[in-house]
């Protein structure tokens, strides 16, 4: 075929251009360490990289969020540990106070000790996170949750619980409301509370009692009334909730035996000692009694002995002390429950952290596979392209050097 001289040059120039631009592309890949220099190099990989980098970024963000939860949960855990210790101490004091050998001034000393503990508990409940946010104040981070006034310690903030996103489909609580920790403690045995009336003049001591048949529970208020006639002590139980259905749970005139179980409507408790005529005991559904209230009730019981003295005063104190011990146990339980939940959150954070880290490695690996250059391949490409270009240049020189004019 005939070849025009300018074609030789044009074709070679465009070939050299092509090879040079390939060489430059490979060189840029090596210099930037990236296979994808522009989306056009591999559009599908470019889009995948964007999606994966979002997944990777959110995954890293969840790790930061987990740190935040871990920080606040650890803080709350250490405060609640102090609370538990404190409540154990209070319980020990209450147990000591039940020792019948203590005289009035001994009890005063214990009361003073307890009131110091109450203040300490209050300050623990009002703990802050170091930047001025209260740990147990719900959504109102800057409002002091607990304050002490004439009516006792009040909870002034709310039930809010702050959740934090710690995984793509997992939120964990970063805070616990003070109401749930300190205020919502059921008194009595958690279902009902059996109490001696303050006006009692006998020495009857009522036990905490238990539920024998949850299905029979009514949630009504009951009253146990004692009467003593001719040396025989009898009692009857009446349902004093207005509009409550009869029958009468325990008929009046039932003979009283100290320590014998009194059961009705699924409840059971016993009374020991010697109630006198007209003494009244009540059984009512448990209500919330804050830990503060429990301690201050105990303080009050320690400080104000029954003026009747003797067995009556001892029985009244024993009743109060038993109440306090019950409530303290339930309070310690309640705090423990919150601490357990904190602990399981921390454990879950750990396992999420591990999962998150290995996911992060996966993401980064896939992103790298998609967009990073394989150096071995790139350098081998570069060498090959370099050799091809050199060959093309040399052969071009040889071809273009041939001319008939040289021989004329």
């Amino acid at each position, binding site marked *: 075929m005939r070849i025009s001289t300018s074609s030789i040059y044009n074709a070679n120039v465009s070939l050299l251009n092509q090879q040079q631009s390939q060489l430059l592309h490979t060189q840029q890949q090596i210099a930037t360490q990236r296979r994808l220099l522009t*989306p056009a190099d591999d559009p599908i990989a470019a889009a995948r990289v964007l999606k994966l980098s*979002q997944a990777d970024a959110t995954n890293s963000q969840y790790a930061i*969020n987990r740190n935040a939860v871990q920080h606040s949960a650890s803080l709350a855990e250490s405060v609640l540990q102090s609370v538990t210790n404190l409540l154990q101490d209070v319980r020990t004091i209450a147990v000591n106070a039940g020792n019948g050998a203590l005289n009035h001034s001994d009890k005063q000393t214990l009361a003073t000790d307890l009131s110091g503990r109450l203040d300490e508990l209050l300050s623990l409940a009002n703990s802050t996170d170091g930047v001025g946010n209260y740990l147990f104040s719900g*959504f109102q981070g800057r409002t002091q949750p607990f304050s002490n006034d004439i009516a006792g310690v009040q*909870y002034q903030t709310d*039930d809010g619980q702050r959740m934090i996103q710690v995984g793509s489909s997992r939120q964990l609580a970063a805070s616990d409301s003070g109401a749930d920790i300190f205020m919502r403690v059921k008194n009595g045995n958690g279902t009902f509370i059996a109490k001696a009336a303050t006006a009692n003049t006998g020495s009857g001591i009522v036990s905490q009692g238990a539920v024998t048949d949850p299905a029979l529970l009514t949630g009504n208020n009951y009253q146990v009334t004692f009467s003593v006639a001719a040396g025989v002590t009898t009692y009857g139980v009446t349902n004093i909730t207005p509009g409550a259905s009869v029958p009468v749970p325990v008929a009046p005139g039932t003979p009283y035996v100290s320590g014998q179980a009194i059961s009705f409507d699924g409840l059971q408790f016993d009374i020991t000692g010697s109630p006198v005529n007209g003494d009244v005991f009540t059984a009512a559904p448990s209500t919330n009694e804050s830990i503060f209230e429990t301690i201050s009730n105990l303080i009050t019981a320690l400080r104000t002995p029954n003026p009747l003295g003797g067995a009556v005063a001892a029985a009244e104190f024993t009743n109060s002390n038993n109440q306090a011990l019950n409530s303290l146990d339930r309070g310690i339980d309640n705090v423990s429950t919150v601490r357990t939940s904190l602990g399981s959150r921390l454990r879950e954070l750990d396992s999420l952290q591990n999962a998150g880290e290995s996911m992060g490695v996966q993401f980064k690996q896939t992103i790298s596979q998609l967009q990073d250059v394989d150096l071995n391949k790139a350098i081998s490409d570069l060498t090959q392209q370099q050799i091809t270009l050199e060959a093309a240049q040399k052969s071009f020189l040889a071809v273009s050097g041939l001319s008939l004019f040289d021989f004329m």
Partner: protein
Amino acid sequence: MGIGIFGRGVSALNAAQIGLSTVEHNIANANTPGFNRQQIVQTARLSLDTGAGFIGQGVDVSTVKRIYSEFLSTQVLQGQAQASQLETNFQQIGQINNMLADSDAGLSPAIQDLFSAINNVSSSPESQAARQAMLSSAQFLASRFQSLNQRMSDIDSSINGQISSSVTTINSYAQQIASMNKNIVQVQAAFNGHTPNDLLDQRDQLISLLNQEVKVNVVKQSNGTLNVFIGSGQSLVVGEQPIILKAVQSLSDPSRLEVAYDSGSSVIRAQQNSFQGGNLGGLLAFRNESLDVAQNALGRVAIVLADTFNQQHQLGQDLNGALGGNFFTQPVPLVITNAENTGAATISASIASTSALTGSNYSLRFDGGTAYTLTRLSDNTVTSLATLPQTVDGLTIATTAGAVAGDRYMIRPTVNGARDIAVAISDTSKIAAAAPIRTNASLANIGSGRISAGTVNAVFPVDVNLQQPVSIVFDSPPATFTVTGTGIPGSPVAGVAYTEGAPITYNGFTLQITGTPAAGDTFSVTSNTNATADNRNALQLANLQTQNTVDGGTTSYQGAYAQLVSQVGNKTRELEMTSQAQTSMVNQVIQTQQSISGVNLDEEAANLLRYQRAYQAAGRVIQVANTMFDTLLSL
């Protein structure tokens, strides 16, 4: 007889001389673009009939012809128009491709920054530093949208400039071709029908250059002129008369230039997509197929982001206790009234549902009566609207009276999305990280009932009584409850049946009560005052990152942006490939054409020798004749 020898010798000398000149001309123009090699056409003179038979009379050079294949030249023209369109289109889209190339400079890191900042606000909602970081990263995202959009607008206006200069170039070529036509006719008439080879080459070269600006069709006339047609058959050059093109403002979008015919007093508008091929075709194709699509897609991400973010933000409560406002300014659709409309109606378009937006442009035509025809330009889907207002593809189109049949409007719903997005608040305390309500179970409750934190219903505008206190008190027996609160119809509402865990909705909020409440147990919903540590709305805002909110709820913000990147990447790659293939195809054809018409210097060197030898031989003939004369004279 002697005279005959001289005659023949001189004719041979002449022929060799002309041959040498032609070879010299070929050598001189070996690198002239568009030059076709020339050859002399030699013919033997008619011989004289003598008694001794026919005696040759020498040689004549009848003409100098150019070696030219019309078939191959037409093929080159066709291939070149296509190649230069692809090349231009590829170069233009390469700008967008490069803009999106750097994954650190695109939209993606800005989106991630914003949502990281929101997560940090969610972890410490009271922190001014976290809030400031959220505002700053939102501003960063908005400005990233704006700068990406600005870059595309710059490309758009640079295309206006390129269209102008392309039109100028086309006009200049058209004039030159017309005057070439004139010259060729004159020269052919004056020189006895000999073809003016170099003029023809020059004209062909001009046509080839014109063809690289816009694809042409060439029709040869019997008088030697060429008529040139472009577009869908409009003439550009007729004989000696060029038609002038003009770049004019588009009727449907004043910010853009389009190509029209200048008929002196008025302009005749042309169908833009008829200009196929060439640089101009490439520019127009890029603007319609790639630039609009990319700009609309980016705008759509901005619009959906602003809208979904604002909606969630309005369901929250800021640090001052007020309900959240708009976090971003909400971009609005662009409606352009065609400049030639005679009616006075104003069309307005508003966004009814951002997730239904398509990213296409729409053209709306009034058909008379109350009827309109809406055409979605991405796929030319036609929707007949019997009356306005109507909602199509998430877009509500309304009109005022006064339209005249045939009036046209261009609706570009998302084009300004990325330009107009901005952060609407500057006060960190206005970030609505909290929820506007909180729920509370009374400490005096006896039962085990628990109340959920409550959510605000996503109904806009938010209920005015949302933050009014509401109390829920369980009746005796606790199978029902009584709801009391301002704004609740018939308050107090007694005897509402209690189902554990069932949603309870009043005043624009929804909550659940679980467990077994006792009679008299009280739950309340109140305004969330002093809620510095509440992050519920921030949590919802942070979740928007991974929610599928764009394109009918099929993809996230980042996903939609990734779609844009892969779309541009694919188109760029496609153009790169086809452009390369087309260029190498054209190179093949050019090589074939050159193998016939191009100058080969070795061949010319050989011809040089050939004519040199011929000249020497003819000289020797004259010398012989001279010697013969001398012989005769010396007798």
